[in-house]
């Protein structure tokens, strides 16, 4: 029989350390960075350092050392604000994301209180309350490259992707739980009474200089039953919202309810809580991805044991083929190589040395547990770039991210179409497509010429758009050694 302590430890581990996919943490990362940028670009914290010193005479004692706020250094503060913005862009674009998250978190901890420090020591509710905690949490988590949308090196689900997101979600839930606790302690259950709600509605709506929306709140104030409903439902909602942490299925209705709650507050009480947008951390991006791109897409969905075995088998075949120069036959499944190679065509892939791969060759590249068949459109020319190619499906306009030449399994030498075998030949894309394809190809050609790292980084971003395209992949049918 398990002890109570053991049960608690097990529950703790299940909650915080259950393996999770990276995409949800990645979604939270993007959201937090965008939210931080939104606030920083919507204010001018640095300029408050330059206002006359008279405004700072009412600043609470201790605020200076607590946030390192020493007014009168506007240029320095402007540089810090610029650094915070740059760091958030870094978090967003996956450029040293952990270091950038830490820098942005520390800078925001310093900058955000400027808004209120002339009279208050705490900047809660002004939009940047959570960032000084959320950004460092991202910095402490595993945010290593490649980018979260990578299909080439997608990591397996891990507990490392779970606990940071859980902690971020907990901090968002605190907005509501702590808020209702404060109401109960300071005002008691009477806070939700019709009379009290009416009082708040009148106070926040009667002064036309301070209320952008007067009519809805005043109308509500004159309906006691609706006031009671508003007060009680607000308290019940705030008390119950934390359920989303423990019952993921409730997110589908509790998170929209929370957004509706804030919209109501906005219109009836004229209060804007910018942190409310962080509720979107509860979105299940893995679920959406599978819905949008299809759960059956093996290259995108969670890896199953069968797929893992297929990937291992493919790697073994690729090794033999490269060493022996033999051939395999395979069936093309996708339409990305049309009109050159139609879907369903049988193709022959011959292993060739890396040095023989040329622009124009149709090549097969192992991609986890499948093979991708596309045409080489760029081959790096100098230095490290010589070891990389950029491919594209003949039926597509977006290029694929750069791939090492050493990963190419072989060249497609023939295809079986209309009862006979023939060479794939050169690409013959329509004029519109070839024109559209020119831009990405030129971008990657330029990037490879500058730096392989830059080209790979661009490639990570390209995948976001690339995932929306159909691509050709083949299932190995039988192996033929030569």
């Amino acid at each position, binding site marked *: 029989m398990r002890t109570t302590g053991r049960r608690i430890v097990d529950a703790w581990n299940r909650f915080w350390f259950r393996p999770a996919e990276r995409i949800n943490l990645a979604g939270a990362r993007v959201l937090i960075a965008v939210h931080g940028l939104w606030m920083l670009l919507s204010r001018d914290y640095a300029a408050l350092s330059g206002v006359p010193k008279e405004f700072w005479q009412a600043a609470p004692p201790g605020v200076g050392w607590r946030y390192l706020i020493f007014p009168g250094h506007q240029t320095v503060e402007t540089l810090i604000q610029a650094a915070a913005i740059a760091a958030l862009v870094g978090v967003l674009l996956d450029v040293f994301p952990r270091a950038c998250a830490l820098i942005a978190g520390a800078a925001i*901890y310093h900058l955000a209180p400027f808004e209120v420090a002339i*009279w208050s020591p705490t900047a809660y509710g002004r939009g940047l309350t959570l960032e000084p905690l959320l950004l460092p949490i991202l910095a402490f988590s595993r945010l290593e490259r490649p980018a979260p949308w990578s299909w080439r090196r997608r990591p397996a689900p891990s507990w490392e992707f779970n606990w940071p997101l859980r902690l971020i979600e907990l901090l968002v839930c605190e907005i509501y739980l702590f808020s209702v606790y404060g109401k109960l*302690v300071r005002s008691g259950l009477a806070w939700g009474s019709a009379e009290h709600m009416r009082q708040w509605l009148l106070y926040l709506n009667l002064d036309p200089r301070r209320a952008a929306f007067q009519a809805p709140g005043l109308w509500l104030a004159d309906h006691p039953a609706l006031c009671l409903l508003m007060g009680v439902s607000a308290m019940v909602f705030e008390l119950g919202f934390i359920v989303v942490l423990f019952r993921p299925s409730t997110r589908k209705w509790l998170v929209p309810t929370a957004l509706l709650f804030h919209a109501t507050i906005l219109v009836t009480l004229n209060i804007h809580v910018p942190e409310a947008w962080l509720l979107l951390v509860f979105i299940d991006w893995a679920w959406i991805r599978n819905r949008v791109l299809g759960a059956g897409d093996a290259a995108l969905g969670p890896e199953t044991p069968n797929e893992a075995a297929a990937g291992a088998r493919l790697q073994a075949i690729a090794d033999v083929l490269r060493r022996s120069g033999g051939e395999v036959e395979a069936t093309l499944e996708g339409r990305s190589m049309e009109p050159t190679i139609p879907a369903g065509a049988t193709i022959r892939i011959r292993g060739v040395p890396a040095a023989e791969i040329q622009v124009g060759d149709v090549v097969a590249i192992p991609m986890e547990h499948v093979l991708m068949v596309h045409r080489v459109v760029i081959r790096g020319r100098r230095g490290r770039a010589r070891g990389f190619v950029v491919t594209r499906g003949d039926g597509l306009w977006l290029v694929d991210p750069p791939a090492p030449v050493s990963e190419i399994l072989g060249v497609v030498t023939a295809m079986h179409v209309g009862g006979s075998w023939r060479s794939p030949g050169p690409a013959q894309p329509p004029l519109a497509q070839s024109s559209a394809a020119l831009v990405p190809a030129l971008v990657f050609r330029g990037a490879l010429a500058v730096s392989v790292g830059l080209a790979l980084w661009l490639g990570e971003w390209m995948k976001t758009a690339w995932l929306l395209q159909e691509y050709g992949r083949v299932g190995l049918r039988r192996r033929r050694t030569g």
Partner: protein
Amino acid sequence: VLTSAIAAGAFLTFLALGAWVVDGRRGDASGTRTPPRVSVLILYVVAVSLTSVLSRHDLWPFSAWSLMAGTAPEAVGENPPGDVVIVVDARGNEFEVDYRAWEPFTVEELDTWLPHLADLDDASKARAAADLLARANVARERVLAGKSPGYFDRWLGPLTAPHHFLHPAIWTQPDDVPREPFVVFRVYREFWQPEARRRDATTVRRTLVYEYQAARSR
């Protein structure tokens, strides 16, 4: 001061624990050393957050989130303050000021600060008032030029984050402001009771708290 010191210490400890987690991950291929450290970090965040809310001392960014926790005020005037800034042009016409004119101040913070004006000596009061009057005039000129009175929307335009409290925009076109500069800065304190004002809008009582006149060139 003590609360500020505790809050700053709590944030620094949070960063230190995070560094400890990152350090534990190095060389921890088996993944056995990191989870206990992560657990300590999580427990710490939870403990400090609870301390903040239970003690009712906001340890921002470990916030107590006491949003509208108190009872709604039965009278406005002294607490909460009902201070209103009015500016006057050379002809003696009074104008209310658009909330965006005070940027980089946000209007709700400035409104809360205004009662502290009384704590300043006369020279300091005049300097603060002159600064705000100048901001109102800059905003007036911007409106006359067909621009927004404030500049927070310089990067994001209509997508700029709204203020904590939603104020109406009252300077939306050049006709909303005078062509001549504002020369007087006044602070009025308004006294009103919500229930009475709902019944009769004229029950608002107003007294002049402070007036500053800009020096006029001869």
